């Protein structure tokens, strides 16, 4: 299955969260591939802690592949190439975790026939090899978004299942922007329909992920004053109201990831060790990511809203 990770703006935690989802699925035994289509600002190498990836992707990454400079994009086996102390020990029963980095120098580019064909070829190929393919797309209605919308509308891709995750932060601005990215005049749905996707079908495979959500009930906020606490609850309520009035209410939300200092300050994978031993990350975050990872392929969460 293909999972496209999109976001209304930068700074939503899209890359780091989707990388963590990939990691969780691999832990659970799936063969997972993570594609960095965030042309212009590739971050995956940092998130997976594979500095070699930067080197390798100098001119052989996804961007070079899509414009036809190389026959195959570079692949990095995260378990064996990461410098992360914990990740280096691949747990028994885990699946493969492969990163395809973007190019360091590669910026955005226009979608041509040839680029599109190579994109389709790559997705088809990965689909027969991996259980889950996470495609991290540049923020907004980018070329990357257009290209995968176009690619998934091709006849060859008919048999390939795909889903969209739209990440947004839990603020008034972000809620409105995320709704517009999907349902707006120039949004994903409109863009998809223009490329031959069936509207209902496309809508049914799009879900939202609320990122960096402060949970008023969390221990993190146990020290705040009663007034602050009440204010937070009110804001949260208002935001829920707002989200539902923008058509991205509860039924379209796949899950939320709590506000997590580790994700905010140092984009990285959160391992069980971070939660249990060093305790730098919150258990709630780990659980939220794990739950979200499970829901990616749980049809119950993808039934018609």
């Amino acid at each position: 299955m293909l999972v496209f990770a999109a976001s209304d703006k930068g700074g939503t935690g899209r890359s780091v969260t989707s990388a963590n989802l990939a990691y969780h699925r691999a832990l659970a035994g799936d063969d997972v591939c993570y594609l960095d289509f965030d042309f212009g600002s590739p971050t995956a190498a940092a998130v997976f802690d594979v500095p070699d990836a930067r080197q390798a992707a100098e001119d052989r990454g996804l961007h070079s592949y899509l414009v036809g400079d190389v026959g195959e994009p570079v692949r990095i086996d995260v378990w064996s190439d990461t410098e992360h102390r914990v990740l280096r020990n691949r747990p028994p029963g885990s699946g493969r975790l492969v990163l395809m980095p973007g190019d360091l120098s590669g910026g955005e580019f226009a979608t041509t026939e040839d680029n599109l064909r190579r994109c389709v070829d790559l997705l088809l190929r990965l689909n027969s090899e991996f259980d889950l393919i996470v495609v991290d797309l540049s923020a907004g209605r980018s070329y990357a978004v257009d290209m995968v919308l176009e690619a998934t509308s091709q006849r060859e891709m008919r048999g390939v299942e795909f889903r969209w995750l739209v990440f947004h932060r839990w603020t008034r601005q972000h809620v409105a922007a995320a709704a517009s990215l999907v349902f707006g005049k120039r949004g994903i749905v409109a863009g998809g329909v223009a490329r031959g996707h069936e509207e209902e079908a496309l809508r049914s495979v799009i879900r939202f992920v609320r990122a960096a959500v402060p949970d008023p009930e969390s221990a993190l906020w146990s020290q705040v004053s009663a007034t602050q606490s009440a204010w937070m609850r009110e804001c949260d309520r208002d935001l829920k109201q707002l989200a539902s009035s923008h058509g991205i209410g509860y039924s379209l939300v796949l899950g939320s990831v709590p506000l997590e200092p580790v994700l905010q300050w140092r984009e990285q994978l959160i391992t069980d060790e971070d939660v249990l031993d060093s305790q730098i990350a919150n258990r709630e975050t780990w659980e939220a990511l794990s739950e979200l990872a499970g829901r990616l392929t749980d049809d119950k969460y993808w039934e018609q809203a």
Partner: protein
Amino acid sequence: MGTPGWSARPVLACGEVRTCLLPSFQALDGRAAAQLLRLRADEPVRVSERPNLYALSPDVLTGVDCRLPTSNGAKVRAVGTVAARAALTEGRVLQATACFSAPATGPDTRRPWGHYLVRPGLVEPFGKLPEQAAAEGVLRGGERGELDLGMIAESLLAQLLRHPLLDHKPPFKSRRTHLRWAARRAPRGEGPSLERFTLAEDGLRTVELRLPEETPAAAAAGLCEDLALHDWLLTTVVHMLDNSRLGAVDGPSAVLALRPAVDHLLHLWMPRAHVDRTLGHLWDVLEREPGFTRQWQTLVQRIRDQLAVQAIPLLHEALSSTR
């Protein structure tokens, strides 16, 4: 590859085979296989039904004019055509090969293109060919800008995978393997031999051969496709057994994970089925060590045992419910 017997006798033949599961829910029958591999409207696909279903596409050519990969850094420009072909075994396993032969020496300037086109699959070096360095270079893989057989095989595979016959719903996920091979000319009077088979990482395998002058590159390609096919079967079933976590997880889910092997792979083992008669015996050294067929039989036995063990509780249940 039907090279008309003019001039330039090759001293080196090299190729790369890519092997993958056909991404379709059901295996293709002979007719559909022929349809898939019809790379040219006017040339037939070869289809055999004995001893197993096997279809082989006509060759398609790609023109090249670039440096050959060499292990010692020697810069040798070469011009000619690389032949590519695809094979489908039992409508299930798809392979694409790109290969070329090279003579010991070639002209110092590029000739008109028509000269190369009537020598399909021949790549002529400018000046003298550093045989050993070029053979090693191909096996190791070239630098950017050097002849890239993998790219040619891959683009043929990609073209086939876009065929409307394929639904892209494979019964299970599997990795591709790449097998690179290089065949140097055997000393006069000696028969063909398989010098080395190397299992490298990331699904890469390399094969070194020595072949007499009269062995066509197509026969070498056929042998290497057969080796690649069986190596892929081993690789894939081993991975499947690893992933099923036999013994670690409860019975039924392990069985579920192994089911595709029974449905789609176990009947495919048939070394030498379509290998040129003069090369079939090269399998013997691999059967002695490490023993490809021996490993396969063990894997098959393990899967069958598991299925049998899992069937016992079901049998019990059935018996007790009839009482």
